[in-house]
């Protein structure tokens, strides 16, 4: 099997619009969560959300290119521009190589709602405009990025609920390991508009700690009361090792393994066995000693049962080893389809800058989180290998292990 390395990263999130900004936010423990009054006017149970700025691409992309892009495709475009730049890839390279594209995305509600509203009001489908169809498809991110950057390798959207981004990277790594692709642009994107999470709010999954938005997302804390929705996009350029060496690429890390599993049980309530299996598979496939793992980026979203069962799964696998476990969702909220990719970027930024971001708002442990080493203050330490979990509705699980280079 061929080795898979990361040669570039890019990010557009509530913690910043570049790697540098996001690194600083992680370092200082800044929360990206706000209260959105528009959601309250719309009848939301919780108006909490991450605040993510929609990029202005007028003057950057043509009018027709922009017409087909919903907000998450714009986030993904910006993250990908940054990642390609950092990987030393220009348009000439993309035009002369078969570069793939695999991105996690599992909804695109806003354009679909607008199109349906138009059809209902006007009783005329033409008036939806030309962009509606391309914005409304789940594959909108990969169809947009593929045409903008002229990518001619695999072009595929991965929809695996809140593990979409992690599955996209993991599946991309498999294609490179087996020699089918030399380079793939991978990532995850998540829309942030209210329509996209209205029905999610409706099942009482969100925190209602509206008087303290920055304290609302509190993974593993005893007093957590639900997740806070977030979004944006994150891109990693993954590449076959020899290929990267040959072109003199900045090799920054190696993807050691991808573990996966499904719970096969309840549609929303996670269990312990499924995640444990994904963790064990990743560790086994990585071919490393478990003690080499210096940091665990948990999926933990700040829901009661989710965090509890992940804590049990991590304890099942790691036992009493004192490895720092944190959830960056304490700062970002739950970035859902994007999370599996963004949390690789967040963890990479920590690994490259010798710190572990605080699991902010972790004030009191519960019975299960007490068994883990969860720092609520930043830890300044060097580590060379991390594990990142991503789990999703329907019981889909993904685990990635990445090593520093």
């Amino acid at each position, binding site marked *: 099997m061929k080795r898979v390395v990361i040669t570039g990263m890019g990010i557009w999130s509530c913690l910043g619009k570049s790697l540098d900004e996001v690194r600083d936010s992680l370092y200082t423990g800044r929360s990206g969560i706000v209260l959105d009054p528009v959601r309250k006017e719309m009848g939301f149970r919780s108006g909490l959300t991450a605040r993510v700025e929609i990029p202005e691409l*007028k003057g950057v992309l*043509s*009018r*027709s290119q922009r*017409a087909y892009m919903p907000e998450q495709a714009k986030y993904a475009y910006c993250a990908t521009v940054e990642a390609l730049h950092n990987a030393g890839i220009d348009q000439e390279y993309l035009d002369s190589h078969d570069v793939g594209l695999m991105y996690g995305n599992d909804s695109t509600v806003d354009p679909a709602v607008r199109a349906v509203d138009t059809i209902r009001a*006007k009783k*005329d489908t*033409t*008036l*939806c*405009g*030309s*962009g509606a169809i391309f914005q409304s498809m789940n594959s909108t991110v990969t169809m947009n990025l593929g045409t903008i950057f002229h990518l001619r390798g695999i072009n595929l959207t991965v929809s695996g609920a809140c593990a979409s981004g992690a599955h996209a990277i993991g599946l991309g790594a498999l294609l490179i390991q087996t020699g089918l692709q030399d380079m793939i642009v991978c990532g995850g994107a998540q829309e942030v508009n209210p329509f996209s999470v209205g029905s999610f709010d409706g099942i009482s999954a969100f925190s209602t700690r509206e008087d303290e938005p920055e304290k609302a997302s509190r993974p593993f804390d005893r007093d957590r009361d639900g997740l806070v929705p977030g979004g944006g996009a994150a891109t990693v350029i993954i590449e076959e090792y020899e290929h990267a060496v040959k072109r003199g690429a900045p090799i920054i890390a190696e993807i050691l393994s991808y573990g996966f599993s499904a719970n096969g049980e309840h549609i929303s309530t996670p269990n312990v066995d499924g995640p444990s299996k994904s963790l064990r598979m990743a560790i086994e496939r990585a071919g490393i000693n478990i003690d080499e793992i210096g940091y665990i980026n948990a999926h933990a979203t700040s829901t009661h049962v989710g965090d509890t069962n992940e804590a049990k799964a991590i304890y099942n696998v790691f036992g009493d080893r004192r490895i720092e476990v944190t959830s960056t969702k304490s700062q970002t909220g739950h970035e859902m389809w994007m999370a599996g990719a963004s949390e690789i970027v967040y963890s990479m930024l920590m690994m490259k800058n010798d710190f572990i971001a605080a699991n902010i708002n972790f004030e009191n442990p519960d019975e299960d989180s007490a068994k883990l080493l969860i720092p609520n203050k930043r830890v300044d330490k060097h580590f060379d290998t991390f594990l990142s979990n991503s789990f999703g509705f329907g019981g889909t699980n993904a685990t990635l292990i990445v090593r520093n280079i």
Partner: protein
Amino acid sequence: MEKNDLIAKVNSVLAEEFEVEESIITPDANIKKTLELDSLSLVDMVALIENEFGVKIQTADLAKVQTFEALYDYLAERV
């Protein structure tokens, strides 16, 4: 709406939406060429005109509305 006002508004909204200089919009110029419309962005022009003027250019009429002059006349008869 006076025809001159209508022409001014048509030119303004089309130039803004399709990101061209308003000065290149002349009565006898071809709409598709001037605004660089393909089959998809032509749909956007129809939607934009409907939204701004409340007039839907019927698909069967599109072939007749080739120039800006033809568009002004089409709208003037219906606004």
